[in-house]
């Protein structure tokens, strides 16, 4: 336990302009802020941006739908396929990326490594439908 004794600080006496030295130093520095829309913004290697799917790797198992905390993913019936003599229903995911929180839980749980988070983050749009990702459906059909 360490006591920080403020009464000791008060002995130093108060003065106005204690920060002047630092003010002059920073006044002649280059600006810290970057003019972002006019130059590229850097993100970290692990940055979690827009979700992307590799339709070829996706098997339609539906684990991503089960784990998604923001209800982004819906499995859609795409048709049937024959396995031996049986007809099996095929499903593929669609993504409503406008509700996506980019947590990456689906990426962690995808056994087939079909999902990944890109570094894309400029997702503002006037058309909500442009953020619906149904790439996986189109490949199957």
């Amino acid at each position, binding site marked *: 336990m360490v006591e*920080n004794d403020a009464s000791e600080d008060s002995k130093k006496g108060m003065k106005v302009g204690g920060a002047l030295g630092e003010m002059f130093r920073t006044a002649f520095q280059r600006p810290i802020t970057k003019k972002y829309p006019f130059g590229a913004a850097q993100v*970290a290697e*692990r940055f979690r941006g827009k979700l992307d799917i590799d339709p070829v790797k996706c098997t339609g198992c539906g684990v991503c739908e089960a784990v998604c905390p923001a209800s982004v993913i819906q499995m859609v019936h795409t048709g049937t396929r024959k396995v031996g003599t049986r007809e099996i229903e095929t499903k593929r995911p669609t993504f409503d990326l406008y509700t996506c929180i980019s947590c990456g839980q689906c990426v*962690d749980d995808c056994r087939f490594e079909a999902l990944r988070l890109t570094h894309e983050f400029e997702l503002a749009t006037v058309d909500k439908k442009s953020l619906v990702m149904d790439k996986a459906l189109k490949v199957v059909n």
Partner: protein
Amino acid sequence: MSDKGNNSPISGEEGSAKREVSAGLMQYSPENLMPFGPVHPALHEPEYFKLILEGEVIVDAIPRIGFVHRGIERAAQDRTWIKNIYLFERICGICSFAHSLSYVQAIEGILQFEVPKRARYIRVIVAELERIHSHMLWLGLVGYWTGFDTLFMWIWKDREHVLDLIEAITGNRVHKSYNTISGVRKDLPENISEPIKREMAYIQDRIRYYRDLVSREETLVVRTRGIGKIDAETARKLCPVGPLLRSTGIARDVRTEDPYAAYDEIVPEVKTSSQGDVASLLTLRADEVLESCRLILLALEKMPSGPTKLTAPRSVPKGENAFHVEAPRGELFYYIRSPGGITPERVKIRTPTMANVLTATSMLKGYTLADVPVVLTGMDPCFGCMDRISVFEVDKEKQWSVRGEDLRQYGISHYKTKKL
């Protein structure tokens, strides 16, 4: 509910005993009543303060909470254990890691998981980084509310270094989504130890400068020293948590009293201060940042190798558990009960601001309206707060509203004419 007499929930001994204070709005009539809130995104947990003024001096402050109840505890009952991690992170942007940490450790207690040692060390690193960025945000805000905008910008500039580290480790600046049941989701990135050491040296250097500055610079000292004073005896009665409690000289810290993660091996030194005013909170939080820097470097040095997570089951067996962690603002408490399935039956959360709100109102008593922004910021409620308050003067049947910015300007000009 009795109308007359002292029914103030904080029952100040001298202040409210002298005058008749009652719950009805119009019965305050000799005094001026200033309702503070609630319909604005005021504090971390939206609150409403009835400030009873006599001239400019606050004689009583009565909090009322619960206006923006989001129903998160109920929502958690419909979601699976994993989904809830991301839900609880969104209770608070500043201490999102502390929320998920407390929640997952409560579950790990029911599952009786032995979390890998490396994961526990990584949790310490991220939790301490979060404490640094929360405290620096707060230090900057005090600069802002006292009219020392330059300090605000400097500290927030330096805070970016910490946020960049957090983004490099977890993938996001604010909602880290880094914890999972049984460990952390990813190992530390390769070659991260060199940037961490570099940035910690930078932060330590800057914080030492700011600590010196805030105790000397008159602009800040006049607005903070002796303001919002609270003694240890009152603090014991009102049970605040975190830096607010430690600023009164009581050394309580969950990290040392009930160690979690790897705090049993990386033992923090509990910093205290004896003054109990906003000025001592400034130096105390600066000291805690320096201590956090030391803990991060120590954890990095002693970092064991091994896995960072195990395979967690989807369902949790029947049982209940409570867990608490030391969030940047104080003790954060989680209680969970599992019916034996994939969703919780009950989750109860007690956030630090909830514990501190009565103390903050007690701190306001006897100080002026101009001190309200600084004292309420002193308890570290949440940022972007006081953007609109209404002022009522009951006896004059007059009502007008003041934006937070106006109140800030009022505070600055008040002290300009008075002391500076």
